[in-house]
């Protein structure tokens, strides 16, 4: 399959991720959308790594996954804390800071 197919898929995933962030209200779902964006990037890296036959792209993906895991930890912890406080993780209810 040509590279462009993978790239197109990657792009679609990325855009879906963006749309998810834009449109969803639940922080968890937004978080999943962010992961989708990361994975879109991963797919692109792997595709290019494949195209150039270079290892660097794939290594990058590993790093991304590791870092994403760390982010997950922090993110979930934050959400738990907020859920404890507010009883919800609806981000539309988080607008006391504005102006």
């Amino acid at each position, binding site marked *: 399959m040509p590279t462009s197919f993978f790239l197109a898929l990657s792009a679609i995933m990325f855009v879906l991720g963006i749309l998810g962030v834009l449109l969803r209200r639940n922080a968890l779902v937004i*978080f999943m959308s962010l992961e989708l964006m990361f994975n879109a990037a991963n797919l692109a890296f792997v595709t290019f790594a494949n195209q150039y036959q270079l290892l660097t792209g794939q290594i990058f993906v590993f790093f991304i996954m590791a*870092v994403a895991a760390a*982010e997950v930890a922090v993110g979930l912890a*934050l959400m738990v*804390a907020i859920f404890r406080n507010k009883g919800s993780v609806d981000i539309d209810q988080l607008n006391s800071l504005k102006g």
Partner: protein
Amino acid sequence: MSQMSDLLTILPVLIVVTWALLLLVVDLWIPKQKKGLTALLAVIGLAVALGASLATSGSTTLAFNQMVVSDGFSDFLHILFLGSGMAAIALSYDYLKRMQIERGEYYVLLLFSIAGMMLMAQAYNLIMVFLALELLSIPIYVLSGFASGRSISEESALKYFLMGAFASGFILYGTAMIFGASGHIDFPGIAATLHAGQVNPVLFVIGAALLLVGFGFKVAAAPFHMWTPDVYHGAPSSISAFMSVAVKAAGFASLLRVFMVLFPGLADQMTPILWGIAALTMVMGNLVALMQTNLKRLLAYSSIAHAGYILMAFVSYGNKQFGSESISAALFYLLAYGLASFGAWAIVVAMEKDYGEGLFLEDLSGLGKRYPWLGTAMLIFMLSFAGIPLTMGFWGKFYLFRTTIQAGFLSLALIGILTSLISVYYYLRVVVFMFMKPGEKELQVNPWVGLVIAVTAIAVIAMALYPGVFVAWANQAVMLLQ
């Protein structure tokens, strides 16, 4: 290339990271009432790293297969970051105690973040850029929400986290595009391919644009700035102070290096974009700051505005003749801005009664009369922000505008001038409240906070008396830029 010299190249970062890890452990044995010891240890760690940084400065070395670099640019920023770290700790100690959120991890996280920033300044590979970015960001997400149980702190943390991750997504995707376009992720490789004309121009430009967005987010450039006021407002003030200086500087560090090293050839496409972003940032930051009544938010918008001024100089980065000038001006400005910013935030820290309270402009009423020195210090910071002589802020703007005009962006400079004028109004409003409105506010200034205020205030004035040294320093930092 020996292992030893590789390690030496990242010695300051290494020290900070190691120190942080050790401190994490040591902190377990430090009793809850004596967390001051942790703070002290953290400062010592930063001081050691600063010593190491100064000791190893002056040379340009690449290490770890050209993953990292140590040059004048990174030396300059290391000092800035480490200094910011120390200042932030000095601000934090008493503040955390008063807000009853004192825990040892705070300092550890701060150290990690600083390590990330330092690495950011040294990164010479897009992997390193990404890793450093995350290393500096993740602790900051946590620190923003450090006042657990305070909803504004948590809100700010989540907002920052979600949007920060969102921005990271763009940086990643941009990196992927650049990798796809050039087949490299190391700076020399990309530059060489680009030079040889073997890149896919569309992918490359898109990648560059996405990176710009990511970094623009970090430096709080419009229209990617909207997290800034909310996060600065909700986060512990000491962290806001740190963010407003160090995180911004780190964002600029990578922006400057990536653009100077990787994208000088894209100047044609990037310059108009940068122009627009710079103009928008200056306008947005200053105009919205006009109407702020909360000092923290005011400073947040002001920090947005200052990002705009730095970007204004940066617009001409691709100019062969003056490109380096723009970097040098930006660095110098960061220094000037950082000093004043820390000072101003220190006053915020001193003023904050309960978490997030007592920060309105009215709360400043009468302070200048009651505490003339404090008032004078705040005056100095505001004047420096506004770019009025004889402060470092003046020389900063002087240099920035000079660079902008030299590169031929007169209209941008005019926008800068106009928005500066607007900024004078709201900075002076702070002074109005301090000196010209009656009020009887009591203030307990912790000696460490007082020290930060005094040192920054004196520095803002004293350095301005003979700014040549620091200009030369910034110039040198850029000359040695790889």
